[in-house]
């Protein structure tokens, strides 16, 4: 088992924080390169609704002053960065009294829960299916059924979401169509609430699993076939080990390693898919929040949500990276 060294840990953490800094800086710069500004946009929207807004210029000026948009860019940048360090992501411009931290804090747990559970399911199911596809003792029935269930792999998550929503929520009414829990249920750690959350989360999670697990199954199958040709597989057979033991201790155990690497790499892409699925199911997570923010040109919220998504992705990759020596004895985290 590879040993951890403080040296490696420190360097890996430095890379992690460097990622966050670059991400924060880009997030600060990019919206400022876009034409228009949020306050004019908001006032314009208000005037559309009301027909006319008195002293529009003054309002714009006042708000710009309030948000510090008149300061030189570097002052804004410093303020933004110090705010981030203190966990202050600023105010939502469209829903002014609410802070971004507050809005994100309400949405993030739902997304982490949804993505976490979906990832767990598609990674387990996908790899298991892949392993069974390659194993020479798998019943023929199973080998026919698994590829059939993989036809969804090539469709975008958004379509899978719509399809599931139409069939299971609209036609069959087995699952609710929107939101993360029923409006009549009191949030809390009660069985009722948990059951309700699972009931609401099933369709969005299924949409993600359906379009992703085939990818993992195919990857795993390829790895398993490679492993089957290894010299140690012949020895395992010659040793007269029990077939099931050979499957998990010799084949899956070795085939899973590249899959773990692939998982770390794919987390960013995964989040993209989740955003769309959340919107379809009007799931009150980060995806829906981001889309709302974009629609309302809410700079503060766009910056905050994007930043938090990057932080969580980078953190997940960090965790997988640090766990890698635990599953592959050939990799060690000693300073090199």
């Amino acid at each position, binding site marked *: 088992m590879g040993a951890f060294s403080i040296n490696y840990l420190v360097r890996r953490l430095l890379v992690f924080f460097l990622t966050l800094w670059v991400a924060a800086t880009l997030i600060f710069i990019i919206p400022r390169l876009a034409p228009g500004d949020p306050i004019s946009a908001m006032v314009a929207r208000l005037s559309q609704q009301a027909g006319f807004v008195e002293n529009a210029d003054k309002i714009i000026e006042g708000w710009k002053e309030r948000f510090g948009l008149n300061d030189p860019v570097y002052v804004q940048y410093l303020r933004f960065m110090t705010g981030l360090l203190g966990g202050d992501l600023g105010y939502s411009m469209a829903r002014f009294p609410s802070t971004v931290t507050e809005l994100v804090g309400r949405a993030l747990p739902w997304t982490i829960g949804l993505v976490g559970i979906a990832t767990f399911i598609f990674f387990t199911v996908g790899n298991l299916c892949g392993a069974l596809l390659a194993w020479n003792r798998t019943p023929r029935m199973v080998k026919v059924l698994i590829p059939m269930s993989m036809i969804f792999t090539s469709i975008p998550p958004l379509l899978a979401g719509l399809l599931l929503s139409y069939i299971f929520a609209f036609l069959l009414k087995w699952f609710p169509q929107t939101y993360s829990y029923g409006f009549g249920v009191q949030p809390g750690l009660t069985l009722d609430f948990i059951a309700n959350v699972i009931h609401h989360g099933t369709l969005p999670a299924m949409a993600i699993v359906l379009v992703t697990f085939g990818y993992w199954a195919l990857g795993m199958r390829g790895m398993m076939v490679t492993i089957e040709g*290894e*010299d*140690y597989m*012949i*020895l*395992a*057979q*010659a*040793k*007269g*080990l*029990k*077939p099931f*033991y050979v499957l998990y*201790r*010799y084949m899956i*155990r*070795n085939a899973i*390693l590249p899959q773990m690497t692939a998982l770390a790499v794919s987390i960013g892409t995964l989040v993209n898919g989740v955003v769309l699925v959340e919107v379809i199911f009007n799931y009150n997570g980060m995806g829906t929040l981001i889309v709302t923010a974009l629609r309302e040109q809410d700079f503060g919220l766009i910056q905050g949500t994007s930043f938090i998504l990057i932080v969580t992705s980078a953190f997940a990759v960090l965790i997988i990276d640090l766990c890698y020596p635990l*599953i*592959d*004895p*050939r990799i060690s985290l000693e300073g090199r």
Partner: protein
Amino acid sequence: MEMQTENGSERVVLKVEKLRIHYATPQGDVIAVSDISFNLYEGETLGLVGESGCGKSTTAYGILQLVQPPGYIVNGSIEVDGTEVLDLSEEELRKFRWTGLSLIPQGAMNSLNPTMRVKDQIIDVIESHEGKQESKEAMRDRIYELFQNVGLPNRIYNMYPHELSGGMKQRVCIAMGVALHPTVVIADEATSALDVVVQRIVAQTLVKVKDEIGVSLIVIGHDMGLLAQIVDRIAVMYAGKMVEIAPVENIYAEPLHPYTRLLIDSIPSIKERKPLKITEGITHDPRNPPSGCIFRLRCPFAWEHCVEVEPEPIDAEHKHEVACHLYDERFEERRANAFATFANS
């Protein structure tokens, strides 16, 4: 290394009869092993030699029931201590493996599972045949003893394969191969991937362990020099046929089969440079072997009879068989003439 004595036991532990193995290809079956028969006696070390692709490894894997598709056993009988291996059910075969027949694999470099500790790979074979062991200490001591047999230090107990050198991995494979005291151990080119110094040490280890534990051993290889030092008898294969099987002293002093003669004559010597006596180039198409004798296309002594009739193994001496018409009593005269001309050329 000392020469092994010829006076082994007369008890047959492995009896291979008419073993035939084909590889299925779209253009027809390739005949990898063609009706070979031989006996392995108790405590004996038998060397199996031949050119690359002559079917020596396939023979070994056939005996072990490990022929990988598209290869398959067409017919034959493999008896180990009275057990017909080919008749065993899947579960019986699993239990029979490693206790009846074990393998020291070719390319020990990659024959160990990279994600398992050395000890766990030895423990798993013990536990899948003898059941879960109660005492961890007893198991550890048992493995230490195996390590000692093959000259491995105890510190590798908890190591992973990638932390060992090539020679050490090969020794782990030897220790593993004899862990259950099998009747027959088959070493498939066990020393081929090692340098000469390590080769010698590993070969010595192999013989020492074999003698200590009292198993019978089949060593597959193409290094005639190395084999001569460790085996009791040598079986020479050519194109899926066993052409000669003889005690090692006989085969070097007086090889009988023309192919064996050419092979022995071609062993490189450090004192003189010798040309390769065997005609190079393509042999026959393994899908359509020539009629009669398999070696006749490259044999300097072949005549019409070799085209028409396939030679059967002839007992030349005790434990010495040769498959060549020249040793048929009817052709004694021809043999004398042929060898005389050959010696003059």
